[in-house]
């Protein structure tokens, strides 16, 4: 009786870590990041034309990887409600273009850097943080992906590079603009920024 109980306790305790570290967030990030790496290492894509194809492919991956609605909402925070439905849609599109333009160019300069996947931490019931490290010649750069569960999938809603959260960084910028300007003025600034004025 006693032996059985002890065995039961042990088994249950072994199961607890499985509940805590379910793994899907890490798997989701891993799959998408590896897809990006495959594109970057594709030696058949060379020169300017190759770069263009690479950029397009990465854009497609990012579409699946990120939840841009969640990202936009979190970036504007309480200011999100100051935008009407039309403005929200436009903001989402412009913000997405801004991020893609800024980061796609940066990412395709990477070639022989290695990505190491670290641990996964639960932030809340539906959100988690996946730690990764990019190993460059000079140093290791920690990049953490914050993911949220949407249906069966886990989507990225924030990227934290060296402790700097992308969403928080933009939120502070937009907050200052919205402090003394209207949402329309903010959209106009964004339009100019991404060249869609």
């Amino acid at each position, binding site marked *: *009786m*006693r032996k059985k*109980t002890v065995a*039961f*306790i042990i088994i*249950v305790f072994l199961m*607890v870590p499985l509940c*805590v570290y379910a793994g899907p967030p890490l798997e989701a990030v891993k799959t998408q990041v590896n897809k990006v790496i495959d594109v970057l290492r594709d030696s058949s894509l060379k020169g300017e034309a190759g770069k263009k194809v690479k950029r397009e492919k990465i854009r497609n991956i990012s579409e699946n990887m990120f939840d841009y609605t969640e990202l936009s*909402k*979190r970036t504007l*925070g*309480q200011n*999100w*409600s*100051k935008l*009407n*439905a039309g403005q929200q849609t436009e903001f989402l599109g412009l913000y997405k273009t*801004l*991020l893609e*333009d*800024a*980061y796609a*160019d*940066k990412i395709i*300069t990477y070639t022989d850097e290695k990505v190491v996947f670290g641990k996964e931490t*639960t*932030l*809340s*019931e539906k*959100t988690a943080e996946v730690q990764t490290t990019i190993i460059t*010649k*000079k*140093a*290791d750069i920690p990049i953490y992906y914050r993911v949220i569960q949407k249906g069966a999938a886990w989507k990225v809603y*924030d990227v934290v590079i*060296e*402790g*700097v*959260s992308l*969403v*928080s*960084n*933009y*939120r*502070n*910028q*937009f*907050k*200052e*603009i919205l402090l003394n300007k*209207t*949402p*329309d003025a903010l959209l106009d*600034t*964004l339009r100019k*920024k991404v060249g869609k004025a």
Partner: protein
Amino acid sequence: MKLTAYVLIMLSFIFIGYNRASAEQSSPESQTVISVPQQETTPPIEQAKPAVIVEPQQKPAERQKTAAEPEIIEEEPTIQIADPIRPWNNAMYHFNDKLYFWVLKPASKGYSAVIPEDMRIAVSNFFDNVTTPVRFVSSILQLKIEKAGNELLRFVYNSTAGVCGLADAARADLGIQRQEEDLGQALGSYGIGHGFYIVWPFFGPSSLRDTVGLIGDTFLDPVTYVNPLEASVGITAYDEVNTVSLHIGDYEDLKKSAVDPYVSIRDAYLQYRKKKVEE
């Protein structure tokens, strides 16, 4: 049998405990329930206009949507810093910006055209090795004995196996990273706040606290004690050009991605320093 029941009760406590722990973890993300008031969804200009007849036609649909599911927008707390000397900071931001594009970048580009990347990394490693006292003392002051030990070990290993610190052999062979510690972080770990934001010409973003730290760091940096002063300044400038040559494009990317580069840099500095202090 009694024991099994007891164990089950215990386990249920553990699970409840776990759930509570995860709830606590999520609590810093302040949840704000926003049930969008109708006036706010319409632009302020339309409010002023007496075009009341047109508006209600659009409203019901929107109202239904918001009434059915009040939107929950999660928001991580942002960190803020006082910026009372913003005009000065702004001027210095522009000064440093020009300094980069007109002086540092061309110099670094010319330099990197002559010196291959591997050699520039070696130079950077050399300077990192020389400034070990800064990181060692800062670790000690925070009673981070392991970090201090790692720095000491790195210094000995890199100075010998790494040939005078030119190679970061400790990272490659032993897997020991440079411990990024400085006096500003030590002060931060004592619970001293930033004070306010300061942008220094040449040195870039800083704060009252980190400026004090930076002055202390200079005293711990052997390069400071090089005679004559011109040589010391020259070495520092060379170190800077070498560092920039390894990071050409980073500042441009930051500016390109930012909507307001001044605010973006200020926030990035704060977030970065916060993480460093916590580590």
